[in-house]
C-alpha cells in the first residue's frame, strides 16, 4: 500500500485516495475544432509508461483536493507531489 504525500495533509495511506490516471492532459480549449481522431486521442489514449511519470490523485477521505504525483510505475517508488497548476519536475527520477 503506497504512502502518498498529499501536498495539503502530508503522508497518508493509499486507501484514503482516489486515483485519477495520467496527469497533464488538459481539456482542449476548443473541442469542436478537433478532428475525431484528435478527440478520441484526448478521450481514450493514455501513455503506458514503464518508469517515472506524473499521475493524478485525489485525497478523497481527507482534504478532497486533486494533486499530481510522480511515481515510478516499475518500482512504485514515489517522487514528489505537487499542486494543480504547478509545473511538475522535468524528467528522470524527481526527488
Amino acid at each position, binding site marked *: *500500500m*503506497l*504512502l502518498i504525500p498529499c501536498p495539503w495533509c502530508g503522508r497518508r*495511506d*493509499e486507501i484514503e485516495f*482516489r486515483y*485519477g490516471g495520467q496527469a497533464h492532459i*488538459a*481539456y482542449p480549449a*476548443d*473541442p*469542436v475544432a*478537433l478532428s*475525431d481522431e484528435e*478527440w*478520441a486521442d484526448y*478521450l481514450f489514449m493514455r501513455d503506458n509508461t*514503464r*518508469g517515472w511519470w506524473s499521475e*493524478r490523485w*485525489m485525497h*478523497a477521505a481527507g482534504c*478532497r*483536493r*486533486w494533486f499530481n504525483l510522480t511515481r*515510478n510505475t*516499475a*518500482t*512504485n*517508488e*514515489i517522487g514528489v507531489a505537487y499542486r*494543480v*497548476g504547478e509545473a511538475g519536475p522535468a524528467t528522470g527520477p524527481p526527488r
Partner: protein
Amino acid sequence: MTGRRLDAPAGHGVDRSRPIGFTFEGITYEGLAGDTLASALIANGVDVVASSPLLGRPRGVFSAGVEEPNAFVEIAAPAFRSIAPATAVPLVDGLIASARPGVGRLPADDTGAPAAQHRHVHVETLVVGAGIAGLRAALEAAQAGDRVMLVDERSWVGGTATTDDGVDGEPALSWIATTGAALASASGVTVLTDATALGVYDDGYVVVYERSTPVERLHHVRASRVLLATGAHERPIAYARNDLPGVMLASAAWLYADRFGVLTGERAVVFSTNHAGHEAAMSLARAGMQIAAVIDPAEGGRAADATRDAGIDVRTGWSVLAADGDPRVRSVTIAGPGGALDTLDADLVLVSGGWNPTAQLWRAIGGGLRWDDERSCFVPDVSLDGVPGGAGPPWLSIVGAAAGEVPTSVPCWYTPADDLSEHFVDLQRDSTVADVLDAVGHELRSTEHVKRATYIGTAIDQGRTSGALTAAIVNQAWGEGPGAQGPSNSRPPYTPVPYSVLAGADRGPVLLDPMRTTPMHNLHVERGAVFENVGQWKRPWYFPLPGESMHAAVERECLAVRRTAGVMDASTLGKIELVGPDVATFLDRLYTNRMSTLAVGSIRYGLMLGLDGMVFDDGVAMRLAEDRFLITTTTGGAAKVMDHVEEWLQTEWPDLRVYATSVTEQWATIALNGPMARDVLAATGTDIGLEPSAFPFMTWREGEVAGMHARVARVSFSGELAYEVNVSGYHGAAMWDAVLTAGDPHWLSPYGTETMHVLRAEKGFVIVGQDTDGTVTPHDLGMSWIVRKDDSDFIGRRSLRRPDTARPGRKHLVGLLSVDPSVWLPEGAQVVSPEHAITTEPPVPMLGHITSSYRSPVLGRSIALAMVAGGRDRIGGLVVAATPSGPVECEVVSPMFYDPEGARRDG
C-alpha cells in the same frame, strides 16, 4: 514406531517438568512444553501423520517448519484451525488434532473462526525473522535509537540455531539468550513470536499475523525500513519413493534431536550435497543415532573427510536410487561409480540437496534473483540496486542466509531412472519428476506454465521444497543452464491466514458499511414499511396494510397518486448547493441545457453527460439567487456527481469562483403527488400562495408549512400535480406527520420507491442507471430537446459528434406493450425481431433488452421500457421478447404511456 524422546539433558527447547496432554486422531498422547505438534508426535512414535491428497499415500513429518509439505492437521481445540502443518503448531494443553490430506475444510458454522484485533504500528525498523541474522539486525537498530519490531513465525527466537552453532566465538544458544533478553528489555522494541509477516507491500507496509491467545492479532506495520532475515530452506532430492514416512530433511532431524530431544529414527542414510548434511550426520551420531552411511554425490572434500574421521561410512560419488518400506522406510538402495549398487537397512533417509534462500517476500515486492553456481541456488540479487526488478525498493534489505549466505553445494536434483513416476517433486500435490517432464513434453517452457500444468507450488506450502527442484528439472530438460529461469513466484500470504483474521473484529453493521436513514425513518418503520437498499440508504419500498401483498400495496399506492394523493419520502435525493459569482457559467458547462438563463425562483430539469457523451446523471437545478443554485442528483449518484463537480472545478476550471457543498442530509424532502396535492398542502397550513398562476410548474417558493420553514418546489416525477416540500432535516419527521395528518381526509396514501418507479415509467421518465448503462446518449433516450444547439461547450458535447455516437441505428428508448396485456415482461429480457423467432439456430441477432417493466394499475395492463436498435423507427411494429416462459410478441410504442399531453401536472 521408531521415533522416540531422548533422555535428558537432550532438548534445550523443551521443559521436561511440564508435560502437555494432547489428542491426535482420537488417541491421547503426552508431549512437553516447548514441543511442536510434530516433535510430540515423533516422540510418541507416530510415523504416519496424514495421507497425501491425491494418491492417498502415507506421509510422515518431512521438515521442522512452514516448508512442511506432508504433515497437515486440522485443529479442533483449543481454537479451530482448518489446516496447519504439525511442524508449525505449538503444543498446548488440550490440543485436539486430526489428520488432513493436504486440503483444509471449513466447519459447518463459523463459530470457531478466530476473531482478530487489528493494530496499526509505526516503526523505523521492522525485522522479519528472529534467527541469528535477524536478532543481530534488530539489536543494531535498537542501539541506533530506532523503534524496532522483530517478528518470527516460530514460537521462539533463534530460528534453527543449535548447540553446534556459534556466534562471534560464543555458543549460539547463549548468544541468542543474551541478545533476546537485551531486546526484550530495550525500550521501543517489540519482539513477536508466533507472528508471520504475511506480505511486504509498497512503502514499508507489512502485514503481520500474530497467533496470540486468547485473541489473535493482525498488525498493519508501516516501517521506514524493512530487513528480511528470513533464513533458508533445505531442499530435497528426488528419487524413487522419496515420499515414504522416514524421509526427512537432514537439518530437521538434527533440530528435532537438539531442540526437542527427539530422535526421528534409529538408523539413517544421509543423502547430502553439502557440508550441512555431513555435519547433521555427525551431530546425530553423537546424539545416539546410527548413521548407516552418508551418500555424497560429489567427489569428496573436507566435509566428507571430516565425516569419515568421525567413523562414519561416507560414499562419495554415490546417490540414493530408492527408498522402500511399508509404510515407513526399511531399506535404501544406493548406486555408485561404475554401476555399483548396494542396499542399506535404515528407517530414515535424511536429505540435504542444498539450500534455498527464503526469498518469497523479497520477490513479491520486486526483488530480483540470480543463480549462484557455488551454492547451486537462486539468491537475491542485491547488485541490481535501482534497477526495476533488481534490488527491490530502497527501504528493503535482505540479510543472512536469506541473502545467500548458505552452504556451497553441488547441483543434484533427481537420480535417473526409467520410471520417474515415484520420484516426488511436490509432496503436497503428489507431483513427480515424470509430471514435470510430461509438461515439458507438451512444450511448456516457463516454470509458471509448468506450475499451472502440474499444480506444483500451488499447495499451502507454496512449493518451498519443490520450486527450485522443478525449475532445475525444466531448465535441464530444455538443455539450458541451471540459472536459465528461477522457480515460479509465490504470492502473499506467506502462510495461510483465516479470512476472519483479515476481516477483524465484528464491529456491527454500522461500521462495516454505513447504513443511511432519513429523518422520517422511524415513522416509516412504525407504519410497517418494507425497505429496500438504495446504495447505503434504506428507502421505503412500499407500505403494506396488514395482510396486504406487495402487488396489492403497490396497486393501491399507484391509484391513490393517480386519483387522490400520495406522499413519498424523497430525502435521499442527492443535493448539492453551488455558490459563487461564476456558478451559472459552471452549470452551463455541467449540463447539456442552459442553466444561466434560469430565473431566480425557477427550476429546470437537467442532464449531465460524461466526457464520452453518455448520460451520467440527471436532476433539477433550482436557482436560489443570482449566485446560488441547488441541484439534485439521483439517490445513488450523489457522491459521483459531487466528485465530478469537484474534479472539474479543481483541475480544469480553477479560475471559476464556485464552491460546492453537499447538503443531502441537511434537507428532508417530502414529495406530495396527485390531483388532491394542492388541497393536502393547503390543509397542512401554509402562507405560500398555491394558485397555479402564482405558483406555476417548475418554480419554487419559500414560506411556512405547518408552522415550519419550508422550500416548496413544483416538480413532478409522476406527471401529477406535485409539491416537493423541503424542510431542515431536523423538521423532517414533524413535517411528514403534519402532511399525513392533513391528508387523511383527502385519501392521502404514503408510497414507496416501487410505486414511484411505476408512476414514472407510465410517463416514460428514465431512471439513470436503470434505463441507461453508460452507453446511452440523450439522443438515444429521445431527449434531443435537452441538448442545446448553440456554440457553447458543455461536458460531453464533442463526443456526441463522434461517428459512433452519431450513427443511425443506435439503440433507442421505446415503450413495449405485450400483445397480451396480462403478460408481464421480465426486466433484462432480450428483444429480437419477429423474423428471428428465438427458436432459430443461434446466433440470434439481438435488438436490445427490456430495462423497466411493471404492471400499470391506471392503464390496467403491463408496460415496459426497452433499449431497442433503431427503436424509434420501429414504433407501430412488432418485436419479440425472449422470456423464460417463451417468446412474447410486443408492440413497439412511444415510451410515454400515460397522459402524453401532460394535462395532469397542474391538477
